[in-house]
């Protein structure tokens, strides 16, 4: 039994149970909105995040809802405003700094590596830096050499940082929320081509995806494909295709978090499948796949029936011409061929 007023109230309350199908971009926006509502200390800062509503529209509508103090447009000064985020975080604010793409974070590297990542240890625990930097990487839209890079491994190799790389809308929301609630600097690496991908996203505003846990994105028994970010999306496509066409049953482990790294989930999977392929969108030399392959070779030495294989970006500055770009990318054809070579 309910009165008309109660019914009205129930309708205006946001639904916080179950899931809703939405894009990766919408999931990020929902995470930001929920955290802005939850905690006054949270504020967004970056180029075009406010009036322009985000270069990729992640922050659309947030300026109108939260105002200029919480959604702060910046000049084109990555070193300046990443550093401003570092300082604000040191005084207990929860800045969420948007960098238009990962490529532009290079001009702020000093603030990320020499400052944010050092604060906890270098000052003996006297001050902390709960900063979030979120930025998309990703290639495939003919953006060419300066705008198509994935440096995930550089950051993940730096003690003092945490690096998460959501591959689907649910993790985009859950990991961004976990990052904002974390006491340490966290780099959230998103991915441009998957902003439009859709998936079921939990609506519970208290639900986060824990940092430091990989996920088995697809169960299988013949080979383990270890991937993160967009590479996971490609790996899942390849696994489905190979199951249908070749009867190959691949397991896909989505790392989700590069630092901390969950080798346990990877190693348990390889212990089951005895074969491993590591895929990333960055250059493989000294990259994420290099790290994972080295760790598999130690943790799973007795389990392996074949050498660990890797697929990454061809080691060239990414060219403009569509055919060249496609050839250089860790595309599904290359991943499928690598799977079959490991199984051969």
């Amino acid at each position: 039994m309910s009165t008309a007023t109660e019914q009205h109230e129930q309708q205006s309350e946001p639904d916080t149970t179950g899931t809703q199908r939405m894009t990766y971009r919408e999931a990020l926006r929902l995470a930001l909105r929920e955290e802005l509502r939850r905690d006054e200390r949270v504020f967004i800062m970056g180029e075009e995040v406010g009036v322009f509503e985000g270069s990729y529209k992640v922050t659309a509508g947030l300026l109108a809802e939260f105002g200029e103090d919480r959604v702060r447009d910046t000049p084109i000064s990555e070193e300046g405003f990443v550093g401003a985020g570092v300082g604000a975080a040191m005084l207990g604010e929860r800045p969420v700094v948007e960098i238009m793409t990962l490529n532009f974070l290079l001009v702020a590297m000093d603030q990320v590596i020499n400052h944010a990542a050092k604060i906890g240890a270098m000052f003996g625990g006297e001050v902390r830096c709960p900063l979030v930097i979120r930025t998309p990487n990703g290639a495939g839209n003919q953006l060419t050499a300066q705008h198509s890079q994935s440096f995930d491994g550089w950051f993940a190799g730096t003690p003092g940082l945490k690096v998460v790389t959501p591959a689907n809308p649910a993790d985009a929301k859950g990991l961004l929320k976990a990052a904002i609630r974390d006491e340490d600097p966290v780099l959230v690496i998103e991915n441009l081509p998957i902003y439009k991908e859709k998936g079921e996203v939990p609506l519970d505003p208290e639900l986060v995806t824990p940092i430091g846990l990989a996920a088995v994105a697809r169960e299988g028994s013949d080979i383990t494909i270890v991937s993160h970010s967009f590479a996971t999306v490609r790996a899942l496509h390849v696994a489905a295709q190979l199951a249908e066409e070749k009867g190959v049953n691949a397991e896909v482990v989505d790392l989700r978090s590069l630092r901390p790294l969950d080798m346990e989930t990877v190693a348990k999977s390889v212990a089951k499948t005895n074969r491993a392929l590591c895929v990333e969108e960055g250059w493989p030399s000294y990259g994420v796949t290099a790290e994972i392959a080295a760790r598999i070779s130690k943790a799973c030495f007795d389990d392996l029936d074949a050498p660990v294989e890797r697929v990454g970006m061809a080691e060239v500055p990414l060219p403009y011409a569509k055919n060249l770009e496609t050839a250089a990318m860790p595309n599904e054809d290359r991943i499928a061929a690598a799977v079959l070579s490991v199984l051969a």
Partner: protein
Amino acid sequence: MAIAPVHTDLLAMYEQMLLIRVFETEAERQYKAARIGGYCHLSSGQEATCVGVIDAMEDDDLLVTGYRAHGFALARGTSPEAVMAELFGRRDGCAHGRGGSMHLLDTDRGYYGGWGIVGGQLPLATGLALALVRQGKPQAVVCELGDGAVNMGAWHESLNLAALWRLPIVFLVVNNRYGMGTAVDRASAEPDLYKRASAYRMHGEPVDGDDLEAVIDVSARLLDRAREQREPSVLEAITYRYRGHSVADAGLAYRTKDEISEHQQRDPLLRTAERLRAAGATTDELRAIDERVEERVSAAVEFASDSPEPDVDALAWAMHSQGSDEQFARMRPGSPFGEEELVFDGGLGK
């Protein structure tokens, strides 16, 4: 007739300046005795700037500096014991032996660090000021930098942000004439560094950084402006460092002994002592300060020597916050697939 409170304040400030001078002389001696390692940048000659600016700060104002940090920490009131123990790399140092000479801090006194990358502290200082504004607090930030840092991109970006967002911050350019061994006019197309503020419609002005009272006056005025009107500014304190860029630099490749002697004629300690005498301070009073300072520095060395080294088992201590242990559980030694060589089990949080 001297007015007693001025005389008393000046005596206290003189004592702080002398503390810095004696501390730095001792730090150099300890460095040469290999009890201090790494880089060690001394503030000798720059004491009036350190003490004058800090005297103008209120207790809850914030401070950020570059790596020539000892003088500012001591002036802010961090104990010589905690600073010397940090230089010795000991557990009771202000950063528990993790930071060393360049990375002193004292958050209880609003000192958010000495930073080692030229210019890197500027963006961060704008962030502290932004946080103060967001939190509705009336304080201001003093961001110290050297004359070399004004040629970094971070200077431009930070001044622009500070002016654009009206942040309560004073950029204190300590112009000691040389960025390492490069004279200011060999590095800066506009060697009057304070003039660069005008590019951001920001107030800038120079001060004789060896004149304690002048430094206090202008600092107080600019800090008021920052606190009350949210107007950032640039203060260029023109001073001179007696020692080399760091203890490892003799400091004579790029300047002459005559030049150093000439500056020593205008020594900030001598000048302050003269003012004190003119205000009625007695030789006995000044001698008592000398003795007290010597004792404090000796006590600091003794304290630092006695302080234990940091625990090797705590190598990764405080790198991450409390609550991170669970996140790193699958990466640590002892976990089924942890990498002993890569991650030390040091306790991941304070």
